[in-house]
């Protein structure tokens, strides 16, 4: 099967010109700076601004059929509307690849490029490439989903950025096999591909250790995530008036797991109304967590998500009010990026609803 696919792709590459759509902001389109950052998405036929250089880099292999332009503030302020409109405009040109930016260290532009690339990859099923400086917030937000080439921090690095983006796009279009992120010059998406080494794991581990002892450079085969630290929030002063929310990564959900939260490597969490409940009974709740023995949690879900005693403390007036919803997911094999997103979304909701503190249980 694989062989057949490969042959077909190569034939297509040599016989048809690929179609490219570029995405750029108002500034690189020559429309203006901040005073034009509010412009909604619009489309121009052919290559505008840096897209012209993309065209010359591709030569006859590909044709830039259109350039979609959107003001950075517009995209940032109307994320969903801008995304929808841009994907629609891009889709109309039936491209084989989207090239966005490069955004260098421009934050809003980086977020727009990352977002439009992620949406096009998912919605249109075509590869998308953008470029950013390492500190652009778009890198952290979108590098797990999007090919983001490493660029300089300003447009002085335009030539190199476009060269790297085009070369990556060529490979994604089926021209050549894609190498590891480091070799190809894009930010790691955190994906791993299986392949066979000549030497065994034991041999490689010893080689790595010897290099480490000798103080020579080596690269790990399994990078550990780097976690951030934050300054502790101020304590509560008045517990009697405080609203407290329960959150858990212990996998307690209503029976039947109505939101289909994954038992491990969760990509979502559930929000459940507990306003009328004094106790989590096994008739109504269960644990779906794939990383611990669920016997006890299924006998009494309160041993993981302690609603019964929280309600008791609330009734006794120890604290003001228990927030009327709980948030739960399964914390096993869950990607850090997902966990952080759950936290951000939950945090925003709790802030909006005036919650004063959180008790989060994990297994």
């Amino acid at each position, binding site marked *: 099967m694989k062989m057949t696919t490969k042959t077909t792709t190569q034939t297509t590459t040599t016989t048809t010109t690929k179609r490219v759509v570029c995405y750029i902001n108002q500034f690189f389109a020559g429309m203006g700076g901040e005073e034009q950052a509010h412009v909604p998405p619009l489309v121009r036929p052919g290559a505008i601004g840096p897209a012209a250089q993309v065209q010359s880099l591709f030569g006859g292999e590909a044709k830039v059929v259109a350039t979609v332009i959107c003001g950075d503030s517009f995209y940032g302020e109307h994320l969903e509307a801008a995304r929808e409109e841009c994907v629609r405009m891009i889709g109309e040109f039936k491209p084989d690849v989207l090239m966005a930016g490069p955004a260098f260290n421009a934050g809003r532009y980086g977020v727009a490029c990352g977002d439009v690339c992620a949406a096009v990859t998912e919605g249109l099923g075509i590869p998308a490439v953008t470029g950013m400086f390492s500190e652009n917030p778009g890198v952290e937000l979108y590098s797990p989903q999007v090919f983001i080439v490493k660029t300089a921090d300003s447009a002085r690095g335009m030539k190199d950025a476009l060269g790297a983006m085009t070369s990556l796009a060529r490979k994604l279009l089926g021209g050549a096999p894609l190498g590891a992120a480091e070799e190809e010059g894009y930010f790691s998406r955190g994906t791993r591909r299986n392949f066979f080494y000549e030497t065994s794991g034991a041999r490689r581990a010893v080689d790595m250790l010897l290099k480490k002892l000798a103080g020579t450079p080596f690269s790990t085969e399994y990078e550990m995530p780097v*976690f*951030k*630290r*934050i300054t*502790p*929030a*101020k*304590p*509560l*002063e008045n*517990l009697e008036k*405080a609203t*407290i929310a329960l*959150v858990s*990564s*212990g996998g307690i959900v209503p029976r039947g797991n109505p939101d289909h939260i994954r038992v491990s490597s969760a990509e979502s969490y559930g929000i459940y109304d507990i306003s009328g409940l004094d106790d989590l009974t096994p008739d109504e709740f269960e644990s779906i967590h794939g990383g*611990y*023995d*669920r*016997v*006890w*949690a299924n*006998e*009494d879900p*309160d*041993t*993981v*998500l*302690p609603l*019964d*005693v*929280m309600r*008791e*403390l609330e009734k006794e007036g*120890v*604290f003001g009010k228990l927030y009327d919803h709980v948030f739960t*997911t399964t*914390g096993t094999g869950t990607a850090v990026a997902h*966990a*952080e*997103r*759950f*936290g*951000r979304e*939950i*945090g*925003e909701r*709790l*802030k909006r609803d005036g*919650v*004063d*503190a*959180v*008790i*989060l*249980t*994990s*297994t």
Partner: protein
Amino acid sequence: MVREIENVAGIPVVQIATIVPIMLTVGANRIVPGVAIPHPVGDPTREGEGDRAVRRQLLERALKAIMTPIEEQTVFTS
């Protein structure tokens, strides 16, 4: 998840779980060690009220942690 809730909402978040080094690694600031991995806030080996008493003790400790000013990651064991 703990860290981002605290970061975004700007409110104290106390985590109750059993493996303290993991909580320290993921950046929880207020930490209460739990009973066991499969039942962090309960002890089913104790019959009925005993299980509930353990849960109450841990939650009271968590509330105390929420009321305590801290400068760095802190494990509340009492």
